[in-house]
C-alpha cells in the first residue's frame, strides 16, 4: 500500500442508476416465504414458557392431539434426542441450546413444545390445549447480578453465568495513565434493542425421500446456514438445499432462523410432509431472534490538559440472554475500531458476556459496534466538558491525520484510508454549523432546552470474522470468503450469480453494476441469478457490511477472468500475443488496431473448438472466490487485523425540547459520510437514512424491557416503540469519498451507516441542552420522563 488511492471514474459505478430490485417490491411482486405454497404443507405454532425459569415436569399433548386437523405435538425431549445442539460460538460445551427447551426453560416465552396442524390457525388453537406442568426455578435478569457470587446460574451444568471474560492489554496502558495529566471515569449503558424487520422470520422445510434432500425456503440472513442445518439434523452437507431466490423482508442481523429451521426440518423429515413455520410478531419479539446487544460500559480515560487522549480502559459487560450462540462475538467486532477515529496510544479492553434469563441476544446491525461507538463518543464529550474544551476541538486534536494511513491502532487493526478532517469541515460548512449554533442560542433564549450533538465514528467493513479465533482459540477461522460466477451464453449475453439471499441490500444491483462496469456492458442487460446452495460457490451471507467489498470483488474478478479468456481467443484468431491485445466493451483489439468482435469470440468459445487456443476449454465462464483483503493470518498475541476497510461518518444534530414535557425534537440532522467509492448512490443513501432512523429508535424509544418478574414488557408494537415518519427528521447527507486502496473500485462498506453514530450524536445533543443543570443520563433509551424528572430534581436542588 502506498499513497492514497485514486478516485474511481466509472461508466456505471457511482452513477445515478435506479436500483433494479425496487420495481418488484414497489409493485408488490416480491417473493417471500409467505408466498411459497408447497402441496400438503403443514403449519407450526409454538407453546411458550410462562415463567423465566422452570423445570418442565410433564407435557401432556393429548387434548391438542385429539383435535381434528392436528398432526403432531413435539417437545424438547423428543427433539434433543434426534438432533445435535445448535452452534455455540464459544468454547462452553455445557451451555447447550436446542430449538425447544430441554428439561427446563430459561426465559419467559421460550418455546417448550411445537404443534403441527393443517393450518396455522388450527395449530394456534391446539397450542392452547397443550398442558405444561412446571416447577418454578430461581432466575436472574440483570447482568451485574448474574455475575455476583451465588447468583442463580442460568445453566447449572456450566457452573456460573460467565460465558466470556477476556482482558486485552494493547500498549503501555498503565504507563500512559501514569504520565497523563488527568483522568476520569464514566459508565454508560446501551439498552436492549434491535432491528425490527417488517417481515418476521419464516421457513419452509420439505424432505424429499427419493432424492434424499431437505429443501429449505427461508427468510434468512445467516452465515453458513446450510452447514448448520446439516450438522444439527445429522445430514450430509449435500443433503440440504437452501433456495436463495427468496426475498427477505428486512433483517440487519436478526434473521438468524437456525432454531426455527432445525425444528421445521426435523418435523418435515419425521412427518414426510412440507412444514412451514412463520413467526407471528409475539413469537418473533419474545422468543425469536429479535434482541440485540445490551451492554454496560465502564470506562476510564487518561488525557493531558491540552486535550490529548492517551489511554483508555474499557470494560464491556454484555447481557447475552439465556444461551451463547453467536452473540458474544458482538463484543469482538469493536476491537477492530476500539479507538474510533482517534490516535489513542494504548487500550485495555475487558470483554465480558453473561447469561441471564432473558431472550437470547442475536446479531444486530453493526455487530456490537454501535454500542461501542456510543461509549467512545460519550467519553470524548465528557473529556471535553471536564477540560472546558470545545467538543469539536477535542476531537480535531485527537483525530488520525490523513497522512497517517494506513494507520495501525493498538489492537492490531490497520485502518485503510480516510480523511476525517475533510469530512468534518464539509459538514460544518454545508450543514451551516454557525447557523445551527445561532439557532440553538435563539431557542435557549426562548426558554427551550436546545443542544448540538456531534459524533465521529467508523464502520469497519468486509471482515474476516477474526473475532472468532480471537475470542475462542479453538476456532481457527481465517477466511470469510464470497464467491461469484459470471457466465456468457451462446448469444453473448451476460449472467452473474449471487450465492446468498438478500434482505434489501440491493445485491442484484451491486453485482450487475460491477460486472457491467468491468465488461463494458449496460448493467440492465446483465442477468442476475441465485442458484440454490448446492449449486453455489462458498459464501458467508450479507453480514458485517461486506457485500460491496466481497461480492463486488468476486463479481469483478470473475468478469476480469472473462476478459482474460476473451483476449486469449481474440489474440489467437489474430495470431497475436495476448499481451499485445486489449479489451474494450466486448471487442478485442490487437496490435495495429485490428478488432475481433464479441459475437466472434462468443461463437468460437461456444461452437468452434478448432479455433480455440490449444489447451483451452470451450465455453466462456468464470468463477471467482474472493478472500478478505488483508485477511492473511490468525490473530496473534491478542491482536488481529479485524476488518480491511473503514468507512467514516460524522453526525451533527440540533435537538430542542421544552423543559417540562421534554420531548426531544430533532430540528436539524446533518451527516457526513465517506464509504469510499459508492457503487450505487441510492442504495447508500437508503442505508444511511434507515440507519439514522434506527439510531433514533435506539436513543429515544426502543427497548426490550423486562420487569422484576422476568417478563418481557415490550412484546408488541404497543410498547416496543419504533420511530414513525413523524419522529424522523429530514436528513442532510454530505458526501465525501476517500477510496480504499484494498478493493476493486475503492469501495468500503455502508450497510451499517447512520446507525453507528446517531445514538452518540443525539444523546450528546440532549446533554448539551441539559448542561445548565449538569445532568447526565447514562442509559439508552433516554425517555422523556427521565429528562423531565432529572430537570425537576436538579431545580429542586437549586440548579441552575
Amino acid at each position: 500500500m502506498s499513497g492514497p488511492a485514486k478516485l474511481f471514474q466509472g461508466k456505471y459505478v457511482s452513477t445515478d442508476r435506479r436500483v433494479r430490485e425496487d420495481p418488484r417490491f414497489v409493485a408488490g411482486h416480491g417473493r417471500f416465504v409467505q408466498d411459497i405454497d408447497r402441496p400438503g404443507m403443514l403449519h407450526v405454532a409454538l407453546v411458550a414458557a410462562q415463567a423465566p425459569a422452570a423445570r418442565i415436569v410433564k407435557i401432556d399433548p393429548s387434548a391438542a392431539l385429539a383435535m381434528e386437523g392436528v398432526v403432531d405435538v413435539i417437545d424438547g425431549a423428543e427433539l434433543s434426542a434426534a438432533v445435535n445442539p445448535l452452534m455455540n460460538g464459544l468454547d462452553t460445551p455445557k451451555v447447550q441450546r436446542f430449538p425447544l427447551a430441554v428439561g427446563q426453560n430459561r426465559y419467559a416465552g421460550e418455546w417448550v413444545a411445537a404443534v403441527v396442524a393443517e393450518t396455522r390457525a388450527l395449530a394456534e388453537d391446539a397450542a392452547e390445549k397443550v398442558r405444561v406442568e412446571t416447577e418454578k426455578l430461581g432466575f436472574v435478569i440483570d447482568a451485574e447480578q448474574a455475575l455476583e457470587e451465588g447468583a442463580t446460574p442460568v445453566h447449572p451444568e456450566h457452573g456460573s453465568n460467565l460465558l466470556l471474560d477476556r482482558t486485552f492489554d494493547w500498549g503501555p496502558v498503565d504507563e500512559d495513565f501514569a504520565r497523563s495529566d488527568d483522568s476520569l471515569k464514566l459508565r454508560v449503558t446501551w439498552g436492549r434493542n434491535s432491528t425490527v424487520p417488517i417481515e418476521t422470520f419464516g421457513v419452509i422445510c420439505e424432505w424429499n425421500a427419493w432424492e434424499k434432500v431437505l429443501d429449505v425456503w427461508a427468510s434468512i440472513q445467516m452465515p453458513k446456514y446450510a452447514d448448520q442445518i446439516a450438522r444439527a439434523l445429522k445430514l450430509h452437507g449435500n443433503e440440504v438445499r437452501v433456495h436463495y431466490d427468496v426475498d427477505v423482508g428486512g433483517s440487519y442481523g436478526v434473521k438468524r432462523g437456525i432454531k426455527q429451521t432445525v425444528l421445521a426440518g426435523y418435523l418435515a423429515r419425521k412427518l414426510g410432509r412440507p412444514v412451514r413455520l412463520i413467526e407471528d410478531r409475539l413469537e418473533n419479539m419474545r422468543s425469536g431472534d429479535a434482541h440485540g446487544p445490551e451492554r454496560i460500559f465502564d470506562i476510564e480515560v487518561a488525557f493531558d490538559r491540552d486535550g490529548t487522549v492517551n489511554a483508555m480502559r474499557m470494560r464491556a459487560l454484555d447481557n447475552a440472554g439465556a444461551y451463547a450462540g453467536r452473540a458474544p462475538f458482538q463484543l469482538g467486532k469493536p476491537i477492530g475500531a476500539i479507538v474510533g477515529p482517534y490516535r489513542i496510544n494504548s487500550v485495555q479492553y475487558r470483554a465480558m458476556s453473561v447469561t441471564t434469563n432473558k431472550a437470547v441476544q442475536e446479531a444486530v446491525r453493526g455487530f456490537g459496534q454501535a454500542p461501542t461507538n456510543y461509549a467512545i463518543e460519550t467519553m470524548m464529550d465528557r473529556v471535553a466538558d471536564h477540560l472546558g474544551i470545545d467538543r469539536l476541538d477535542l476531537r480535531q486534536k485527537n483525530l488520525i491525520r490523513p497522512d497517517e494511513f494506513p494507520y495501525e491502532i493498538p489492537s492490531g487493526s490497520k485502518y485503510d484510508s480516510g480523511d476525517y478532517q475533510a469530512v468534518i469541515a464539509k459538514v460544518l460548512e454545508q450543514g451551516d454549523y454557525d447557523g445551527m449554533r445561532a439557532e440553538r442560542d435563539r431557542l435557549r433564549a426562548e426558554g427551550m432546552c436546545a443542544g448540538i450533538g456531534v459524533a465521529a465514528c467508523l464502520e469497519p467493513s468486509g471482515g474476516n470474522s477474526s473475532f472468532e479465533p480471537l475470542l475462542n482459540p479453538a476456532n481457527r477461522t481465517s477466511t470469510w470468503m464470497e464467491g461469484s460466477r459470471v457466465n456468457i451464453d451462446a448469444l453473448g449475453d451476460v449472467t452473474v450469480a449471487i450465492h446468498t439471499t438478500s434482505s434489501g441490500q440491493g445485491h442484484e444491483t451491486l453485482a450487475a453494476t460491477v460486472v457491467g462496469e468491468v465488461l463494458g456492458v449496460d448493467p440492465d442487460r446483465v442477468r442476475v441469478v441465485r442458484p440454490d446452495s448446492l449449486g453455489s460457490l462458498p459464501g458467508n451471507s450479507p453480514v458485517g457490511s461486506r457485500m460491496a467489498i466481497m461480492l463486488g470483488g468476486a463479481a469483478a474478478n470473475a468478469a476480469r477472468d472473462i476478459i482474460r479468456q476473451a483476449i486469449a481467443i481474440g489474440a489467437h484468431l489474430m495470431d497475436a500475443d495476448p499481451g499485445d491485445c486489449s479489451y474494450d466493451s466486448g471487442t478485442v483489439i490487437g496490435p495495429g488496431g485490428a478488432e475481433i468482435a464479441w459475437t466472434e469470440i462468443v461463437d468460437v468459445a461456444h461452437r468452434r473448438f478448432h479455433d480455440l487456443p490449444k489447451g483451452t476449454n470451450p465455453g466462456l465462464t468464470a468463477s471467482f472466490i474472493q478472500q478478505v483483503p488483508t485477511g492473511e493470518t490468525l490473530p496473534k498475541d491478542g491482536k488481529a487485523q479485524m476488518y480491511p476497510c473503514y468507512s467514516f461518518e460524522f453526525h451533527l444534530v440540533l435537538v430542542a425540547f421544552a423543559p417540562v414535557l421534554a420531548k426531544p425534537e430533532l430540528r436539524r440532522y446533518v451527516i457526513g459520510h465517506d464509504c469510499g467509492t459508492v457503487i450505487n448512490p441510492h442504495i447508500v443513501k437508503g442505508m444511511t437514512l434507515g440507519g439514522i432512523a434506527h439510531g433514533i429508535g435506539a436513543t429515544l424509544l426502543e427497548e426490550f424491557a423486562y420487569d422484576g418478574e422476568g417478563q418481557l414488557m415490550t412484546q408488541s408494537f404497543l410498547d416496543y416503540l419504533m420511530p414513525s415518519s413523524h419522529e424522523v427528521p429530514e436528513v442532510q447527507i454530505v458526501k465525501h469519498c476517500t477510496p480504499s486502496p484494498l478493493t476493486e473500485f475503492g469501495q468500503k462498506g455502508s450497510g451499517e451507516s447512520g446507525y453507528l453514530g446517531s445514538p452518540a450524536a443525539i444523546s450528546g445533543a440532549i446533554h448539551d441542552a441539559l448542561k445548565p443543570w449538569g445532568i447526565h443520563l447514562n442509559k439508552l433509551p433516554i425517555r422523556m420522563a427521565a429528562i423531565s424528572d432529572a430537570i425537576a430534581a436538579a431545580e429542586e436542588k437549586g440548579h441552575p
Partner: protein
Amino acid sequence: MKAAPFDYLRPGSVGEACEALAADMEARVLAGGQTLVPMLAMRLSRPSRLVDITRLEELSRIDRVEDGVAIGAAVRQCIALRSDIIASDVPLLAAALPHVGHPPTRARGTVGGSIAHGDPSAEIALAATILDARIMFLADGEEEEFSPEEFFIGPTVTMAPLGGLLTRVVFPSRPSGRVGAAFHEIASRRSDYAFASTGAQVVLDGDGTCTDALLGVGSVGDTPVALDVSALAGTRLGEEDIRGAVEAALEDLDCVDDLHATATYRRRAAAQLAAQSLRNARDRAVEETA
C-alpha cells in the same frame, strides 16, 4: 396471532343487534375494530360472537337533539372530525378529535367504540367526561343512561350493562356566550397513547370575565377525570388565576407509573398541559365576537 374461533353476525337492525347480544353474554360488539381486532389476534379478547354494527344506518348519524348533539355509536371518527355540527356545537370534542389515532385508524374507529372500550387515554372519553356527555345503552328493551363519571370505572373497565348495546353518546351543546375550547396531549410519538392529555372549555362574558370553566385530565390514571376549576369563574383567566386553579385541581390527582412515563412526569406534564389548554381556550373565546 390468530383470533380464537368466534361466530360473526351482521344484524340488519338495532333490534336484531340487541337480541343477539342479549342472547349471548359472551358476545361482543364490533364497531370500528381498531382496538378489538388486535386484541382478538393476541387472544386477549375471546368473544363467542361478534355482532357487527358498522353498517347500521340508525347508529351512523350525527343529530342535533333538544339538549345537545347525539352521535351514533357507529359514527366513524373521521366523519365526526369533518362534522360541521360537532365543529359548531361541541367545540371541545372537535378540538380532541384530531388527536385520536391516525388517519387510517380514524377511518374505521368509531366514537362509540372509543367510549365502550374505556381506555383511560382515549381522547373522546376525556371530552365526554369533561362535558358530562350522556352515554346511552339499550338493554333488555330499555334505554339506560350513564354519566361518564359513573361509566368509566377502571382501565378498560366500564359499567356497560351485560348484553346491552351502546347506541349513542349525547354531548351537551356549547353554552351561550363566548366559548373557547382546547385539547392538548403529550406522547413520545405523534398520536401514540398519551402520557397525559387535557381538555378545557371556558365561557367569557361580554367584557372578558370567565363565567364558567371546565377542565379534565386523561391518560394519567385509571380513568379520564373532570377536575373542578369553578374557582376560575369571575376571574379574567390571568396567568396567576390559571396556575392557582390548576394547582388546586391537580392536588389529589392519582398518576400511574410505567415503563414509558413515571407518575411524577405525568403529573408535571398534566399540570403544564392543563394550563396550556385553559390559556388556549381563553384565547379562542376572546377571539369569538360577543
